[in-house]
């Protein structure tokens, strides 16, 4: 089992077990299956651009290569900043107390690009933190499920269903001004899944 999320609020530690929450667990999901003429599920494969190779599952791999074509083992790879300098590998935050001095603002949570959501089960909770979360405050913590070169941000909150932690990466929206008029830019859109059963 993963280590707990630990938060130190005003000098008192609280810890929470956590489990991932996703749409399929709440609403189920839809999937589309392609069938052949005998109504049996098809096998999905890929054809390279020139038509010379039919790629079935298990035939490809991916990786980093140096100039000249030498493969780079994963253990040699590190995160690099914009100038190509190595970044520090940041430890997982699980099991380590993350200090919070004051509640966060609702807009900070709204500016988050959400990557995952966790249901929390308090193992030990400081009464002051419990009260403030119960009063509607939200708490912002650094969050990394595993060590990484970028630290994500988690927001702890409580509603009538229980405790949750919403994790993601902050965005920084710009202010719109009268003399800064937007123009339409055409780009290829991300494909979107087909599944929804909410409400």
């Amino acid at each position, binding site marked *: 089992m993963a280590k707990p999320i630990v938060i130190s609020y005003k000098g008192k530690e609280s810890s929470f077990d956590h489990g991932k*929450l996703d749409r399929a*667990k*709440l*609403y*189920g999901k839809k*999937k*589309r*299956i392609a*069938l*052949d003429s*005998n*109504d*049996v599920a098809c*096998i*999905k*494969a890929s*054809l390279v*651009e020139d038509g010379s*190779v*039919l*790629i079935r599952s298990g*035939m*490809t*791999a*991916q*990786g*980093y*290569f*140096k*100039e000249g*074509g030498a493969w*780079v083992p994963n253990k040699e*790879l*590190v995160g*690099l900043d914009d100038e190509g300098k190595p970044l520090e590998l940041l430890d997982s935050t699980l099991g380590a107390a993350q200090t919070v001095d004051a509640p966060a603002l609702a*807009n900070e949570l*709204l*500016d988050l*690009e*959400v990557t995952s*959501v966790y249901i929390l*089960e308090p193992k030990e909770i400081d009464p002051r933190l419990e009260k403030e979360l119960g009063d509607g405050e939200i708490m912002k913590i650094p969050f990394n499920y595993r060590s990484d070169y970028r630290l994500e941000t988690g927001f702890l909150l409580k*509603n009538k*269903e229980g405790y949750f932690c919403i994790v993601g990466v*902050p*965005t920084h*929206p710009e*202010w*719109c*001004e*009268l003399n800064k008029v*937007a*123009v*339409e*830019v055409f*780009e290829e859109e991300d494909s*979107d899944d*087909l599944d*929804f059963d*909410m409400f």
Partner: protein
Amino acid sequence: MSRKIHLTNAARRDATVIMGFLKPELPPKMGVPGKPVSFRRYLASADENLHDSLVNKHGEDYAEVLIKEDPEIDLESIGKTISSTSTVFLTSKGDVMYAAPKIKEVIINPDGSEREQREPVEVEANVHEEFPIIWSGKKMPLTEAIKKFVFRKTIQLNHVDGLTYDFLYNMAKELSEAGNMMLVGGGEKGLDPLIFQANGKPYRAFLAGRIKGESYQLFLHLSDMELKIPEAKDRK
């Protein structure tokens, strides 16, 4: 991405403005300090080197053959860089299909069991320039909404001229001062979830605004999930 979106305000006045998804900074690139590297997808095996092909040729117990003859390696193919590809469907026997496959839709319950199989239901987009998305009048305090919904995506709305500046600024001001989010949607009353592309995922959409002097930020926060505990209570 930025494209046009057509929406109404509280007075049912409509305008077409520009929308763009809010994106965070990209994660750091991986590499080797001081040495340029490139990421590649490549062919690691040919069809005849896969397990099933080796079983057909050498039988289930082909370990000895691997050691002596290296049949899993095809020096002609392995390492070939793969760039763009097209999806191809094969029959269940592995033959290439030259006609489009039939499509079946399967509905899966939250516990993983199958609920239903059916003909695919085609869903049209309802966010386009022709019909506006509607200000429903159903508002919710911002502090309540963030505890009820997971806002997976956020679109920022931007004006295209002076008139639409006023249009968006006033909406942002009204919502900001009241501390509210406003449900917007498709349909006559604005209660239908938004679908941005054909067969795309439907989202509940809420407008929220901020102002700073004469500047504004107006967001369309999109949610595909409520913050609640699954009935199965299986959190693994």
